């Protein structure tokens, strides 16, 4: 690559796209005859352009488009005849969402998870948990019952002097 290539190569793409100034064009065109490397770069860009453009030009050339207009016209007329609520209904329609295959396993997993969690979610929890009786002693004078509450952690001792009298300490 020649010394001036580095400055010209920056302009090659703009030159190829015909976006250079008059001075830049002169610079590039003065350089090209003596530089096969820059000519190769331009040739590659030209070849790439042909690869991209030619099939499109051929397709446009052989396509008969007027019949497409008839379809457009028909679609517009159909849209105009639609009742006003139709677009709203379409917008609310969830069937396209359901058609998405990815949502089906997600929905199934959600249902299974809810079923598994349901006993825990709807379990009735008393604000006063059942006390667990630690000890119960009966005698002729007193009956003693010791029980504990877990939350808050309290130990209660009941003294029964008879059915009428009850004493408690904690």
């Amino acid at each position, binding site marked *: 690559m020649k010394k001036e290539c580095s400055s010209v190569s920056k302009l090659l793409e703009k030159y190829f796209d015909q976006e250079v100034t008059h001075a830049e064009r002169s610079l590039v065109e003065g350089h090209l005859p003596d530089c096969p490397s820059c000519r190769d770069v331009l*040739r590659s860009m030209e*070849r*790439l352009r042909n*690869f*991209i453009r030619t099939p*499109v030009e051929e*397709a446009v050339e052989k396509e008969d*488009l007027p019949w497409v207009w008839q379809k*457009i016209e028909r679609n*517009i007329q159909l849209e105009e005849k639609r009742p006003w609520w139709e677009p709203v209904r379409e917008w609310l329609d969830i069937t396209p969402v359901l058609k998405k295959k990815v949502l089906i396993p997600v929905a199934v997993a959600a249902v299974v998870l809810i079923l598994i969690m349901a006993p825990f979610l709807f379990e009735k929890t008393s604000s006063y948990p059942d006390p667990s009786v630690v000890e119960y002693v009966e005698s002729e004078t007193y009956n003693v019952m010791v029980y504990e509450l877990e939350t808050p952690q309290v130990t209660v001792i009941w003294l029964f002097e008879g059915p009428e009298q009850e004493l408690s300490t904690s």
Partner: protein
Amino acid sequence: MNYDEAKAISRCQQGDQDALKEIFDQYQKKVYGIAYGVVRHREEALDIVQEVFIKLFRSIKNFKGKSHFYTYLYRMTMNTAIDHTRKMKRQPPPNREEDGEFQISANPEERPDRVLAHKELEEKVKWAMNQLSPDQKAALVFREVEGLSYQEIAEAMGCSIGTVMSRLHYGRKRVQELLRDYVLGER
């Protein structure tokens, strides 16, 4: 009949379908060219043409004349084509033998090996273009297919000229790398 774009747009904005037909006649090939340049598939490109003109009829009221009408229409076409490509990526590929994409030309002068090589190259180009980001692809189609200037591409894409140059540069570089053997003339 002379085409008066300003009048056609104004009439179309008032719901005149004949005016839309005039715009369609004027731009159908350009719109088809952009659509085909992006999807590189006949039926899909035709679907996009329909969709674009129906959208245009619905939304032309929003065109205030701040940019050129053709860049407004080209932007709409490009967005529709890119959206279409995204949707198609999510769907299984069509049965190509059925949709006729590989039909060999009836022209007896065309040798089958050449036809096949041509088809192979087209498929390669399509594949390489699909490796680009949507912005790079759009810039390349606007420049290489439609021959728009940097200024026109910037207007159609709603970005600066510098951004257009960058997208073109990196887009070309990527496709050249992917089609190296073809671009360097080794095949």
